[in-house]
């Protein structure tokens, strides 16, 4: 290592369920180069300083969604956040807020998975079509209507950003709503009325107070706040108009 080798301090929130009563901080000194991500810093710690540090990661290119952490208090993908932006100050790394910590930087995300399963995240065809008939036609404009919401990588940064989810973990939350909305506005889908029940429920969109931080931190420009808030309008329409339509509820 050359004498010019730069060292950065990384403070990690550690929690070991088999030993610790509650989380505590630990500081590591990590040699770094300007192109190193925070994830690479944390990997260095695991490889050379403390093999017991646990965290999730895989793709290193901001697409698999596993490496979300609180970095200096902001929900971020650690693989696309760079140490150079903090040096020479210390950088603080913690597990994503608002989720139970399983261990160190690993959160429990089973609740999110259940939410994802509950939104019926698949096409409920508006009209059936056989494979022999080929693809459904969908213009670039129709694609554009939902494409943004389909870009969610399930990284959960938006949940770590949303205080309303923190206060009430039953809230369906930003990403699941964005994905629900993605199917509702897909020109091939006809399942909106089935999905509205969840939107309308007490776990639904009205838990949101339009904080908007969810969209601010989203690394994929999904704008989940938009999906949530558009669905307040949809839900209100459903609420007031259900008395007008014979079958009860918007179609």
């Amino acid at each position: 290592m050359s004498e010019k080798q730069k060292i950065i301090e990384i403070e990690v929130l550690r929690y070991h369920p088999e030993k610790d009563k509650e989380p505590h901080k630990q500081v590591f000194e990590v040699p770094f180069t300007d192109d190193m991500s925070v994830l690479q810093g944390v990997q260095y710690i695991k490889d050379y300083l403390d093999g017991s540090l646990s965290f999730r990661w895989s793709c290193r290119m901001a697409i698999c969604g596993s490496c979300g952490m609180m970095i200096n208090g902001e929900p971020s993908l650690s693989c696309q956040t760079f140490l150079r932006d903090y040096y020479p100050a210390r950088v603080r790394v913690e597990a994503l807020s608002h989720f139970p910590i399983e261990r160190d930087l690993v959160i429990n995300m089973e609740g999110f998975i259940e939410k994802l399963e509950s939104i019926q995240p698949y096409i409920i065809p508006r009209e059936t079509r056989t494979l022999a008939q080929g693809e459904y036609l969908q213009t670039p404009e129709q694609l554009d209507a939902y494409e943004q919401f389909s870009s969610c990588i399930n990284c959960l940064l938006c949940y770590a950003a949303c205080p309303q989810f923190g206060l009430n973990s039953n809230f369906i939350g930003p990403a699941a709503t964005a994905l629900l909305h993605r199917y509702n506005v897909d020109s091939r889908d006809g399942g909106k009325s089935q999905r509205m029940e969840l939107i309308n429920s007490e776990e639904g969109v009205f838990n949101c107070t339009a904080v908007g931080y969810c969209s601010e931190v989203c690394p994929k420009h999904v704008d989940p706040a938009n999906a949530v808030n558009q669905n307040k309008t949809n839900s209100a329409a459903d609420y007031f108009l259900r008395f007008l339509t014979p079958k009860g509820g918007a179609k």
Partner: protein
Amino acid sequence: METYKADVVIVGGGGAGLRAAIAVAESDPALRIALVSKVYPMRSHTVAAEGGSAGVKQATDSLEYHFNDTVHGGDWLCEQDVVEYFVAHCTEELTQLEHWGCPWSRTPDGHVNVRAFGGMKIERTWFAADKTGFHMLHTLFQTSIKYPSIKRFDEHFCVDLVVEDGRVQGVVAIEIASGELTLVEARSVVIATGGAGRVFRENTNGGVVTGDGMALAYRHGVPLRDMEFVQYHPTCMPGTGLLFTEACRGEGGFLVNKDGYRYLQDYGLGPAEPTPRNKAMELGPRDRLSQAFWYEQQKGRTIEGLHGSVVHLDLRHLGEAKLRERLPQIYELAEQFMGVDPAHAPIPVRPAVHYTMGGILVDGRCAAPLAGLYAAGECSSVGIHGANRLGSNSLSELLVFGKVAGVEAARFAKSVAPGNSASLLKQAQAVEQRVLGLKTKTGGSERIATLRKEMAQTMEDGCGIYRLAKTMQQTCDKLDELKARFRNVNLEDKSSVWNTEWLLAIELEYQLDVAQAMAYSAINRRESRGAHQRLDGFEARDDVNFLQHSQAHYVAGGPPRIDYGPVKITKSQPGTRAYGAAGEKAEQEERKASNV
């Protein structure tokens, strides 16, 4: 230990595993499916695929063209009957994915759009911007939620297969969150655990791509086929190896050396036209492009960067608007990770390991030579890639053969009786003792990270773009040494909950086995073909001796035994693999000859 009784267990929640699970569910809703994956399915590395997935779409295209491109691209080491089945089913499967909601990019009139890809004669690559794998994986995962018979074991790490009465009857997996083991009984098993690129140093693969399933089957006597063929992708980020998709070139990007010269024209890929025609220049196949880089480096015509030599991927002439529309992720990658704005500066790139052509030996119906065992996806060698895979064929492979594996595994499961639970459990308990032993043993002195780094370095040194007997031998020796040293490994972490150090150790053991299969297969192939190129007197293809598949067999405590199996040739006799103008000429002659 807990036991779960399934009918079919699928190991791997990537594109191939999910497609297989859906196929089982659709073929018989009464079958109980266990989908075991060490990461949540949407984290699987299929998510990282950028460019697209091949399937004949245009009226001017034909199955025959796709067949020829694939077989020529694979340097004739393909199972031609399987390739025929493959090309005939790609489009149907891609359409199926469209019906399930995949946001394919569209033409203005609403049809699915296709783009050009390396080594493909006609545009036939379906794409969803430059996030094709991401969209395919999430579509499959979300669709799989529709089927109640699929029971997922997310974040369960498979540590062994359970084999009894000559057939596979289940798997043993660690629940990562608790460190507890589970036996999943099943009447058939599908392995879909992806590739093994991370045995190399610089690679495009995610951390989970460690060849686990290959090693599992291999240790139970199933040969690994064609493991010496490892694809280098020519345009990757120096240092990290992150990929700049081939679609960059499909959309018209140039590769230039330090003089700004499009050097590919010097390597039989010309002529250098302003928009590369299909199968020429930048749209040549990956093995050729990576080899050309190597020569440029030898000639001193590359640029020296912080992380080794680079050439430039120049996208500037495409303009910001088109780049943002067609290659948005690439744009962000270059900006965020490298500080390069591709609309205004060329991107420094170099080759990195990308894909394992070889894998678990299976027949055209995805069946391995162990009753009840099936494999699909990158971990398998069903025979369509030969010595070099064409870009965009593997995503289609996940769908076509994921489905075949599911259907066949379902059929097999119904044809046999459930096993003897008591004796399966006994086996599983032995497995438990073994894997817990790795964690709890004391007194070791080797660090996992050190062994892993040495393995990756030696693989790069010996099994890189060009290979020599001497360095390959060094690699083989080094791997033997590393396997010996692994026995002395030390784990700092003895705990149960989320003990990732333990998992890394198990993965490293898998990787060492797979790496050995690669290195020994490579040194034994004394010819040059596709991705396997030698510079030590075996520069030419040798169809007399080596138009054969290599097969690496596991030998406990020693290096693998390598033997060979026949290649199925149906319609396409081995010929010269030519690209660019030479390729077009060769094709014309071929056509003339067949017309006579």
